[in-house]
């Protein structure tokens, strides 16, 4: 009797400390970090609300305004890397990034010239930063406005923004990581070494579960490079976005547009005869239907990458907004009941977002593979219309 219960106890212990639950608790710990650090570091502004409240009649509205500011600041791209600021001392912590403009000639200068709303001067031209957009202006920095939007001329902006910087860093990281994984096979006698051991099963997953079932044994090898790149690029950027001080890159529609347009170009360029045949002159249906179906199929070919773009962008953008809003609610409630409640809620949503980072990378890669598969599919018609 005693022994049996001991064995059972041991089983429970083994279950609790088994690999899987250890992984779960590790993931929970990682997910726990952003909500704590985000709440602490980039938001000293709402914490100082009490000092402001004495001058302002409506402290709640003041806090809400500050939360809105922090939220927008976190979600949108920026021309400088800003960690956090102190409203009382007026100090800002961060580092400037290069501004690259094309305005009848190349203008390169540091974004610190824009600090505190100053007018930047370069090569006789004056520029001003207004809501993260650069406008051409005169020495006084005046902007002509029409219905709240400035009408000044905008130079072409090729600046290395926060998002561009993190994309470059992730691209470099991926290059080094997967080069070393590739090299480790030849050095180590066909066995992955180091961090590659963690990524090898994921690479195999992309090949065996995404590429081969959707594209087919015959053609999948041509598309593996794109699928793997897209999968890891989106996944890493999503994870970076969830980190404290992280940058919301995949929640930027220009980035997802770029990713989707590459998928579209590859689909179009590598499509076989059957793909065009089915798009322009659908076999096996009556003639009037062929004429109706052709424009629908053509529109469908454009809607496919469009939905890829919107899905990734909206998912990440909305996820970040929800987390930031929940963290902001802690400062709105400022009570012993409300704040822990919203803390727990933001913690749970953060956990879900960790899942979403992987899920969105998977779905983007999956649908990309599906479109590639449609492009190279060979149909066997039994109607005998040839």
């Amino acid at each position, binding site marked *: 009797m005693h022994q049996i219960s001991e064995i059972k106890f041991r089983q429970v212990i083994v279950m609790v400390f088994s690999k899987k639950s250890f992984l779960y608790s590790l993931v929970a710990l990682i997910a726990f970090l952003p909500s704590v650090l985000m709440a602490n570091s980039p938001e000293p502004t709402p914490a100082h609300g009490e000092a402001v409240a004495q001058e302002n009649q409506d402290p709640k509205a003041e806090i809400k305004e500050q939360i809105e500011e922090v939220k927008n600041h976190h979600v949108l791209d920026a021309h400088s890397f800003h960690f956090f600021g102190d409203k009382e001392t007026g100090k800002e912590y961060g580092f400037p990034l290069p501004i690259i403009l094309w305005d009848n000639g190349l203008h390169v200068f540091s974004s610190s010239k824009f600090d505190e709303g100053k007018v930047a001067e370069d090569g006789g031209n004056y520029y001003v930063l207004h809501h993260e957009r650069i406008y051409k202006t005169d020495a006084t920095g005046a902007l002509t406005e029409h219905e709240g939007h400035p009408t000044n001329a905008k130079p072409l902006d090729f600046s290395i923004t926060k998002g561009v910087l993190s994309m470059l860093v992730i691209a470099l990281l991926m290059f080094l990581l997967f080069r070393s994984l590739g090299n480790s096979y030849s050095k180590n006698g066909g066995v992955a070494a180091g961090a590659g051991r963690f990524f090898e099963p994921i690479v195999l997953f992309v090949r065996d579960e995404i590429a081969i079932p959707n594209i087919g044994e015959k053609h999948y090898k041509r598309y593996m490079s794109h699928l793997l790149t897209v999968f890891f690029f989106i996944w890493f950027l999503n994870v970076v976005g969830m980190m404290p001080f992280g940058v919301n890159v995949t929640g930027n529609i220009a980035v997802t547009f770029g990713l989707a347009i590459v998928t579209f170009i590859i689909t179009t360029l590598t499509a076989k005869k059957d793909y065009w045949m089915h798009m322009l002159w659908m076999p096996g249906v009556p003639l009037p239907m062929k004429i109706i179906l052709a424009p629908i199929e053509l529109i469908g070919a454009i809607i496919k990458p469009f*939905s890829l773009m*919107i*899905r990734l962008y*909206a*998912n990440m953008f909305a996820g970040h907004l929800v987390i930031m809003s929940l963290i902001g609610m802690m400062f709105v409630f400022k009570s012993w009941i409300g704040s822990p409640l919203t803390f727990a809620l933001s913690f749970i949503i953060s956990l879900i977002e960790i899942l979403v980072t992987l899920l969105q990378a998977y779905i983007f890669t999956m*649908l990309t593979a599906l479109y590639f598969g449609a492009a190279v599919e060979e149909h066997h018609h039994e109607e005998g219309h040839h």
Partner: protein
Amino acid sequence: MEGNLHLVGAGLVVIGVGIGIGRIGGSALDAIARQPEATAKIQTVMLIAAALIEGIGFAALFAVS
């Protein structure tokens, strides 16, 4: 009556997407309960279908807002 009707539209979009994804999840659960050996295949198809509905939902939300 001015201005805020688009928020009602956004609510309707979310209701529709919720029903759609809920039905997909429910049906997938039924299918997995009947054929546990086909779980992996069902999950893949479920995720794709859910992603497509979600995409339409987001597109509609953007059109509405």
